[in-house]
């Protein structure tokens, strides 16, 4: 049974989404229960797989249909994918639990179909994180993309046009990826990642123009999907106009999994030697990443809408991860991978906190933060932790990833990236200080309290505490705790998971 765990990770949400469309008459409660059950079982399978990977110290290969690769398709779960799988599982489960009230608010009808799509998106993401075959990756990429188009378009109104733009850009990205796979396939004849890595390391293919074009197309396609700086225009509108439950699932996961695919393609299919010595783009990419970080933060600063501000912060975070991956040293790589895990959690907690505030106040602008510490203390506390993590304040995990990234940038002598990291940290501090100031000292205009009460519970009873419902509060609190916990156990995560996946040649 234990050696079948990799397939349970993917098959359980898949079955759940198929069943969810059939159990419409049973009502929303059954659908919600089925979704949560499936997501928790899948998370359990991910955890079991991760434990096995850590214990044995080597990657698990699962042969689909008992066909040996390269002829069949295999799932490969190594240390990197195990970590990403668990991150996806945790984020999906938390946002699934969180979605009970908000999904009902956004979907007056067909809630079970909404949940089916939700589960399908998680299936696609989990499948991408465990794929060992480049074409299989494309199919799963399209599944998660299609599901996300549907979920984002559910926002209604202006969301349709934003989703249409996302659809066009997403299709261009996926098709570039497919064409790149075609170029690689025509020169090697294989689709399996391990087999490809073996063939591509041959001397005769190192200089090949076609392989270079294939690599360029694949990387361009993935950059379009993950919204790296010049290709990011679709992201903010698409994410900020979605419903709350949708945004909480998609914003933390889609881009992060794309970063994972980039790492997989760069270091598993191609090699560090090929990328950094044969194709010498890394300085250009570092410039792009630095521009993404700085411009993302500056644009975020200019936003009044809270969700839009967070989406621009995502653009900046993508810059961190891309820069770290292209620094070509161990510290940079560690920072990039650790930031995938950390950023998933911090984006999740910020989006959930903002979603809870919007749920109670109905206001998406920064004004909604007024006096939040007194009205919704737990939500505000999680928001504070998330903000501290984005800024990079020590006990949270955001500090450690930035520390590794800075260390890597200094080692690589990429001073522009160092400067960008420092400026971005400062900008993030300003952005969140502005919001938190309003949250602490803001005037509660409806209750007319005096300005200056900093302690949340010192109210004389006039302050009406109105926290979000429990199904929203529990995942919020767990996400906040996970941010701190990941920060405290940084050393373990790096030693047991990330160190093992550092590619050869660094």
């Amino acid at each position, binding site marked *: 049974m234990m050696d*079948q765990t990799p397939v349970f990770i993917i098959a359980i949400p898949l079955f759940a989404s198929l069943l969810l*469309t059939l159990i419409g008459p049973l009502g929303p409660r059954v659908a919600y229960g089925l979704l949560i059950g499936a997501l928790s079982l899948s998370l359990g399978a991910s955890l079991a797989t991760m434990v096995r990977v850590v214990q044995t110290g080597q990657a698990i290969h699962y042969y689909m249909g008992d066909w040996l690769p390269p002829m069949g398709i295999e799932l490969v779960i190594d240390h990197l994918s195990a970590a990403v799988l668990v991150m996806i599982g945790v984020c999906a489960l938390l946002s699934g639990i969180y979605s009970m009230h908000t999904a009902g608010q956004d979907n007056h009808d067909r809630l079970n179909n909404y949940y089916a799509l939700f589960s399908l998106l998680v299936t696609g993401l989990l499948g991408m994180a465990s794929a060992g075959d480049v074409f299989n990756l494309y199919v799963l990429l399209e599944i998660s993309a299609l599901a996300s188009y549907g979920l984002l378009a559910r926002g209604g109104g202006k969301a349709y046009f934003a989703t249409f733009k996302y659809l066009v850009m997403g299709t261009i990205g996926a098709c570039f990826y497919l064409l790149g796979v075609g170029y690689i396939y025509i*020169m090697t004849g294989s689709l399996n990642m391990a087999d490809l890595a073996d063939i591509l390391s041959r001397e005769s293919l190192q200089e090949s123009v076609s392989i270079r074009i294939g690599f360029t197309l694949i990387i361009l396609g993935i950059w379009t999907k993950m919204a790296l700086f010049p290709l990011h225009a679709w992201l903010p509108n698409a994410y900020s106009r979605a419903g709350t439950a949708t945004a909480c699932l998609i914003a933390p996961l889609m881009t992060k999994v794309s970063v994972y695919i980039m790492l997989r393609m760069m270091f598993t299919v191609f090699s560090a030697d090929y990328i950094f010595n044969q194709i010498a783009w890394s300085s250009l990419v570092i410039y792009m990443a630095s521009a993404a970080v700085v411009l993302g933060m500056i644009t975020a600063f200019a936003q009044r809408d809270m969700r839009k501000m967070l989406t621009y912060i995502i653009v900046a975070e993508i810059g961190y991860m891309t820069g770290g991956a292209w620094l070509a040293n161990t510290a940079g790589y560690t920072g990039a991978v650790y930031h995938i895990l950390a950023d998933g959690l911090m984006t999740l907690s910020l989006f959930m906190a903002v979603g809870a505030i919007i749920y109670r106040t109905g206001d998406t602008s920064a004004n909604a933060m007024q006096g939040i510490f007194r009205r919704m203390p737990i939500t505000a506390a999680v928001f504070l932790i998330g903000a501290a993590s984005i800024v990079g304040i020590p006990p949270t995990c955001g500090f450690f990833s930035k520390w590794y990234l800075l260390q890597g940038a200094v080692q690589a002598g990429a001073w522009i990236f160092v400067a960008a990291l420092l400026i971005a940290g400062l900008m993030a501090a300003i952005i969140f200080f502005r919001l938190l100031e309003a949250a602490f000292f803001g005037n509660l205009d409806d209750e007319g309290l005096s300005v200056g009460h900093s302690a949340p519970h010192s109210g004389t009873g006039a302050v009406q505490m109105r926290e979000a419902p429990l199904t929203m509060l529990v995942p919020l609190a767990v996400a906040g705790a996970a941010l701190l916990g990941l920060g405290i156990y940084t050393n373990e995560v790096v030693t047991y998971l990330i160190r093992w996946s550092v590619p050869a040649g660094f």
Partner: protein
Amino acid sequence: MKPFARIILFLCAVMMLTATVDLPDWADPGSPASTHLSPGFIEQGYHETATPNVVTAVLADYRSYDTLFESVVVFAASLVVMLVLRRTSTGTSRIKHFRPKREGRDTILRGAAQSIIPVMQIFALYVLFHGHYSPGGGFQGGVIFGASFILLSLCYSLKFAMQRFKEKMVLICCACGALLYAGIGAVCLAMGWNFLGYAGLAGLLGVTDVMARSHGILAVEAGVGITVMAVMVSLYYDLASGGDMEEGL
């Protein structure tokens, strides 16, 4: 933006066209793509799956995991289109800018449809179940079967087609086809083989491993066919009526 896009695209096109010099010659039997994996599929495929159509064998057995997700992709498409477009309220009338002539649905058209549709459906089933020996399989059969309902709707009316293939039924078929596919994978898992290892069906069916694979291919093709058929009909219902299921093309 536009002149910029044009220049960039033109430069990329020139670059990629000149780079084709590096690609292997077209239709060269000695190219890497034709010598690495494909001989294995052709030479062993028949012995391992008893399916002369190599494309079917590779599609539904060697790469069945891809095909599972392929049927899930179309399932996802029907869900998305329904979630995005379907409205229960019929009050909001929509302007039809381009209205095909309703009077065109005359007796000849209906008579032709009456005689073609049964043949189409039988042909679709033939394509589906003869996929082992001739071109075709689940997708093609499913699309043709779905097209027969689209033809019915075009020649009669949307309501007429929906009386025969109800919307609820369509959605159930969408999910059931993919569920059949994944369910076969799960049965193989329960029999102690890996997911989608059809050889696990051998014990249940009382045949050899090779024949079990052949039957497994047939069963999953049927699943794909059901899903694709239902999805094509569902896409047409939703898109042609604009989501209110009142009036089709």
